[in-house]
């Protein structure tokens, strides 16, 4: 009925020879060994939260891996069926807590899709875009820093946090919170920008461009780092599609797809038509196409593209209202719809169904981390223990989102 799986796992293990990542063969000794099962996590520095990966290892070689999730499950979807539309907004902050603006945006867009006749003011759209892109930069900075940490470099982490701290201070000024913003709301954004805020964002963009060069030299081009990440955890384009990977994971495999350009929402269509930003792709520069380095490179390069988008918005923004005509208690007409937006980690989808009342019928969250993590099981066997850490890091998961 159904044809067999189309792709072969990238590495096949047999007893005679084990293939090491760099293609070197390991000598088999006349020593009988047994595989060792190790629990990486739930508390482990490299799992980026409370996630457990059950590793089966033969010495340093990982022969099997099995992710176990659910330690941070907070029933977000069930809560979505029990609270009012606007009241669910603070919960969206909390699944991918590193890019809360984007989560707010995804949920708001999904609900707005059902509310016919609701018009979003242009200023609100541009402020949303600025916030979402700044948040993407902040999130990728974390990805940059923690990946460095996974590989063993401490200092890039602090440099990344230095700029992220600035972004958070900017968000603190505009909405009063540093991490759980609840700023982008159904119908627009909540507050207009405080005076001088846009200029400060412009200043941040100027400074960030210099700092970005440092990030690049310090880690991305570092030979040790390249050797640690190139040719590791190779995801072919075919495999990426089969697993439903999205975002930098997909683009790292060389698939040219970005929702912001290809299925634009908000003002992205306009910005993309103006040619204001590019989509960085993995090119297999340092190793095989789709390896950890490519994914990491895509994230680092995307930061600069986000800065370009922010600059475009800063030029285009004009005074005006920031919140559409939304009643205090929102009632959404019956209907259902799915809206996917480009989160820093991939496609964040919100499927929202309403029966016409104050409370959702179904509020499904498609977290990119959850889907992206599924690939681990196939990626890990055949790598070294240190590589498995590099692979987990390169998926850039947020456990709050895998478990929701």
């Amino acid at each position, binding site marked *: 009925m159904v044809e067999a799986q189309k792709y072969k796992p990238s590495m096949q293990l047999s007893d005679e020879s084990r293939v090491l990542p760099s293609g070197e063969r390991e000598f088999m000794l006349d020593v009988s060994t047994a595989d060792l099962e190790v629990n990486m996590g739930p508390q*482990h520095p*490299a799992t980026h939260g409370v996630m457990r990966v059950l590793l089966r290892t033969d010495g*340093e070689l990982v022969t099997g891996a099995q992710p176990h999730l659910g330690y941070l499950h907070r029933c977000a979807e069930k809560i979505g069926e029990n609270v009012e539309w606007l009241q669910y907004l603070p919960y969206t902050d909390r699944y991918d807590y590193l890019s809360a603006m984007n989560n707010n945006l995804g949920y708001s867009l999904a609900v707005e899709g059902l509310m016919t006749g609701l018009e979003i003011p242009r200023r609100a759209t541009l402020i949303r875009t600025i916030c979402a892109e700044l948040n993407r930069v902040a999130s990728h900075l974390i990805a940059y820093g923690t990946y460095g940490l*996974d590989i063993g*470099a401490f200092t890039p982490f*602090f440099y990344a946090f230095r700029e992220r701290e600035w972004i958070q201070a900017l968000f603190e000024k505009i909405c009063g919170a540093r991490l759980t913003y609840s700023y982008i709301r159904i119908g627009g954004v909540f507050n207009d920008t405080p005076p001088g805020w846009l200029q400060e964002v412009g200043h941040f963009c100027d400074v960030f461009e210099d700092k970005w060069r440092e990030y690049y030299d310090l880690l991305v081009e570092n030979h*040790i780092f390249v050797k640690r990440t190139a040719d590791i955890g190779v995801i072919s384009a075919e495999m990426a599609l089969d697993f439903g990977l999205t975002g930098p994971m997909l683009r790292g495999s060389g698939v040219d797809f970005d929702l912001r350009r290809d299925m634009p929402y908000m003002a992205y269509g306009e910005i993309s038509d103006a040619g204001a930003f590019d989509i960085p792709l993995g090119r297999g520069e340092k190793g095989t196409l789709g390896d950890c380095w490519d994914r990491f490179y895509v994230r680092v390069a995307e930061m600069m593209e986000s800065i370009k988008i922010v600059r475009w918005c800063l030029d285009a923004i004009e005074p005006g209202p920031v919140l559409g005509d939304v009643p205090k208690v929102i009632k959404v007409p019956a209907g259902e719809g799915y809206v996917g937006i480009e989160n820093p980690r991939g496609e964040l989808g919100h499927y929202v169904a309403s029966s016409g009342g104050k409370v959702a019928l179904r509020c499904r969250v498609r977290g990119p981390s959850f889907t992206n993590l599924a690939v681990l099981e196939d990626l890990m066997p055949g790598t070294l*223990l*240190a*590589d498995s850490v590099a692979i987990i890091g390169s998926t850039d998961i947020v456990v709050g989102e895998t478990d929701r």
Partner: protein
Amino acid sequence: MEQRPFLDFLETLGPPAWVPEWALWLTAAGLGVGLITTIISLIALFSIWLERKVSGHIQCRYGPMYAGGWHGWAQTIADGVKLMMKEDMIPTGADKPLFVIAPAIVLSSIFGAMVALPLSYGFYFAQMDLGIFMILALGSTTTIGVVMAGWASNSKWSLYGAMREAAQVVAYEIPLGLALLVPLMALGTFSLLDASHAQAGFFGMNWAIFQNPAVLPAFVIFWVAALAETKRAPFDLPEAESELVAGFLTEYSGIRWSFFFLEEYAAMFLMSVVAAVFFFGGFESPLTWAAREAFGSNTHIVVQLVCFGTIVIKGFIGVFLMMWLRWTLPRIRIDQVMTMGYKYLTPLALACVLVAAIWEAILSLF
């Protein structure tokens, strides 16, 4: 010349005749041990504080600022007191005797290696003709303690760390020794004191690094190997915290854990001093030269103090360089560590030895 500075010192005090000779010997030994322990502790205290400040400032932050007042100078003391007060924990499944002995072995081996370290021309614990062999041999004994600790902890992560340490140290002993051969050839001695003498020369700048073209690459190789020997980043695989939680240290806490820490910093200092002695002139510097010119002898107290200061400063420059590297570089993978040790450093070190030998042979013709 009889080399027993502590005994000589005691005899200059003029002990009463009824004190037997063995008591004098014991007292001298006790003095030596006490002094060496104090020096190591002070070095480690300062190094830990320095590490925190260096890492802090590299990372755009301050590091400790409160304890003690000026830039948190007493932070390490406060930490040490805290570590001593901590509950002494041994995991249930651990091999208790080994678990307890391991930190002691690690620390005592580095203490032993320190014995061969001269502090100045007239002040040393033991004058050894083969001092560098002593340092290399005892310095790598720490591996036994680390493997013991990893095994005794009865934790998988600890075992990984221990195995990595064993593999790493074995791999890097070779380039370390080979790279040291180059300056040894240039200087023509195994003794640390004699090596220093051999680099006196004009203005105190006749350093080994200027004597032979192969010494500079040999130093780079030595330095990389020394980083691996001391388990410093980028070779901190035995305790790679993002991979192995804390490696062989996972189950340790309190004072036992601090022994490992003490050992790490003492080993860093030791390696830096060895590098300073064999590559960068030992006690020799323009200042030493000037002092010697002024006072005319190597054994004058001022010259000795200058020598001591020079070696300590050189040592800490090395320690600082290790820290700088640590806070810059990512960690290497275990197979790359092996590749680097066997495929890169060892052949390159051999090449350096060859070049140095040829150079020396040519020099000896004239």
